[in-house]
């Protein structure tokens, strides 16, 4: 008679066509028996509908203030294998491209030092090594470092920057977002590893307005590749799409948000009023062979996104409508100066656990722009204010409102 499973509820999750994490935990547990307690404790949670982890304690590795999430079971009596079960965040290679060699190295180290369970990847983008003992943390880090890997962020620091595959695997990348993501990660190792700000700060780099790393929703500083000249049109390919059966009027022109595309069905030609194009990507997405972003490329800098705690979620909003791609290349002087000043302002003015966007809300764009010595421009707003409660700069009132910046 086969032994009765101790995890009947979770076993249910091995059924069905989608790959099952339960199967993977069981696989890991075959070689690392302690890991079975992860499943056992989870089964208890499934029975009781409540988690069984205690509030994380402060654990870490020497010289770093972040990168490790402490975690302890609240039933070490039942699940000694996960008594302490800390997570390590390992900075992934930019764009999540790997060699099998590097990955096998990580797997070997992790099998030696931890549970054998991972997340590829965490939702910030790190490699998550899920669950190890307190005393394994330092040796684990040493091994990883030796293998050429380093920790990602946690706590009130710069979080691991991430980027869409960009120029590596996409024809629409408007700047080298992979290179910049890598270079900025290297440039700000100090900020990444040693929490010292009011709260966390995230960078995400998308190569174009399709925003395949969801930068606008998830990064305090969102880089969205874009262009400022005309969309590149290949007339022959347009005609080919039409002949191939694409309804260019309905599928492309009618879906343009500013209706700036006109299509002439007889000549099978399109005309784009580029001054009204808001670079939404739709037409390009539908006809990738015929249309391409313009040649004057760069990115839109947007800032302030975050999850809802405490006052509701924020999306990033436009700070600099266009940074030419030449400024997004080494030595990045413009950007480094910009972000250093931004961080300084945030650090000086932000309250404990106040994200950059929340500070912006609290003190107003006006104050931020003044501190940064930047000009307000209409691209920053959806629409001007509707309330009349304007705070005037006293000096503008003394001179004349008209000349007010």
């Amino acid at each position: 008679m086969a032994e009765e499973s101790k995890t009947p509820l979770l076993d249910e999750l091995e059924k069905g066509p989608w790959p099952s994490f339960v199967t993977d935990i069981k696989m890991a547990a075959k070689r690392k028996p302690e890991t079975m307690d992860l499943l056992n404790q989870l089964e208890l949670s499934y029975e009781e509908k409540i988690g069984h982890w205690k509030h994380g304690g402060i654990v870490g590795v020497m010289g770093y203030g972040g990168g490790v999430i402490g975690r302890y079971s609240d039933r070490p009596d039942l699940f000694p294998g996960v008594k302490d079960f800390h997570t390590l965040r390992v900075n992934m290679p930019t764009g999540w491209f790997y060699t099998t060699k590097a990955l096998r190295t990580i797997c070997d180290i992790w099998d030696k030092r931890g549970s054998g369970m991972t997340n590829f990847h965490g939702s910030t983008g790190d490699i998550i090594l899920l669950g190890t003992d307190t005393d394994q943390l330092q040796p684990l880090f040493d091994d990883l470092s030796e293998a050429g890997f380093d920790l990602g962020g946690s706590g009130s620091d710069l979080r691991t920057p991430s980027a869409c595959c960009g120029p590596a695997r996409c024809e629409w990348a408007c700047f080298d977002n992979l290179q910049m993501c890598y270079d900025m990660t290297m440039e700000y190792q100090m900020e990444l590893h040693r929490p010292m700000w009011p709260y966390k700060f995230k960078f995400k780099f998308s190569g174009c307005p399709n925003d395949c790393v969801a930068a606008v929703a998830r990064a305090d500083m969102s880089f969205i590749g874009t262009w400022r000249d005309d969309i590149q049109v290949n007339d022959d390919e347009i005609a080919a799409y039409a002949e191939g059966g694409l309804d260019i009027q309905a599928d492309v022109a009618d879906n343009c948000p500013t209706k700036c595309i006109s299509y002439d069905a007889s000549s099978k030609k399109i005309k784009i009023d580029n001054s009204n194009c808001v670079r939404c990507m739709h037409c390009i997405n539908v006809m990738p062979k015929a249309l391409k972003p313009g040649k004057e490329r760069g990115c839109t800098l947007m800032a302030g996104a975050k999850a809802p705690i405490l006052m509701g979620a924020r999306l990033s909003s436009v700070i600099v409508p266009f940074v030419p791609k030449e400024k997004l290349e080494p030595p990045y002087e413009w950007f480094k100066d910009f972000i250093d000043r931004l961080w300084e302002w945030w650090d000086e003015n932000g309250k404990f656990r106040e994200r950059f966007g929340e500070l912006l809300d609290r003190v107003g764009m006006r104050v931020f722009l003044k501190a940064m010595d930047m000009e307000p421009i209409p691209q920053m707003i959806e629409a001007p204010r509707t309330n009349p409660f304007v705070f005037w700069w006293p000096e503008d009132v003394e001179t004349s409102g008209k000349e007010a910046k």
Partner: protein
Amino acid sequence: MPAKTDIGPPYFKDFLPKVILDNYGKWDYHEIVKPGVLMHVGESGDKLWSVRVGGARLICTDRVREYCDIADEFCDGHFRFTSRHNVEFLVADEAKLEPLIKVLTDKGYPIGGTGNGITSIVHTQGWVHCHTPATDASGPVKAVMDELIDYFTGVKTLPAQLRIALACCLNMCGAVHCSDIAILGIHRKPPKPDVNKLPKVCEVPSTISSCPTYAIKPKKLEDGTKSIEINDERCMYCGNCYTMCPAMPLADPEADGIAIWVGGKVSNARSGPKFSKLAIPFLPNNPPRWPEVVDAIKNIVELYAADARKYERVGDWIERIGWETFFDKTGIPFTDMHIDDFDGGAPPPHIAFRTTAQFRF
């Protein structure tokens, strides 16, 4: 010997396959050859096939090694993960494409997630590792994907891409706030503070000030120690106090559960990025397969599939038909919970800020 610090991640270009290095920044166009298979063509004429495979995200080292084995066989030892945690096998040699697909299929890996369908669910830790969850993450995700897999593999298609995300508490690590469909773990009861332990393990003033709705008040214990008490009526169960202080647990087996949100998006395509909006305020936690959650999502997806126009994301579709029609057609009851009444949660001034990359120069 102390470890080297601040070495940063390995240089990404060292990890790129040759075809990518050769065509870096010089891709010309792409095609979706079939569901889950992208073909990128370089200006050089070089071609790169990417075969996208769904996974559990919470995987073991053996699984990773299996990926490596496959990549060694078909991809010259290179592969990648996507921003939504799918695996992409990168093939430069067309001859290897179908054999690769066969091996993946034989091993039971779902191939898909491209184009106008459903890709993997971005999600979080849940009961597997976090201390604040109101639900599990990997479990509901598995249950939902089992049901929706045909939209992943391309057996069924949708009017546009549909992104699902899950976060197990209001911290929203899954960044579900901008998803076509979001699954959110929620608490519904105020924390039950351990008032005696609290002053020992937490700073009382910072615990009090952690509450955005001022629901936490100072209170002296009988022995004169300063502790806190909670004004239950003002609490909206955000859990921020618990993040700040472990003596404020708020998980509760019956009160905790899942809320479903709809209509968010991230891309600038056609309409700008938008927030997800509340569709179903509460569904119970019903492990191991969360049938109420699975059904609710299936209901919305199927209605959307049948009713939306080509290229219309869920949010665009609902805006066109109107929220009243959405509630009507889905049969989801409309409640007072749907009506925003959180003061601080009111779109703050930045509602006026431009949150799309859509503008004219």
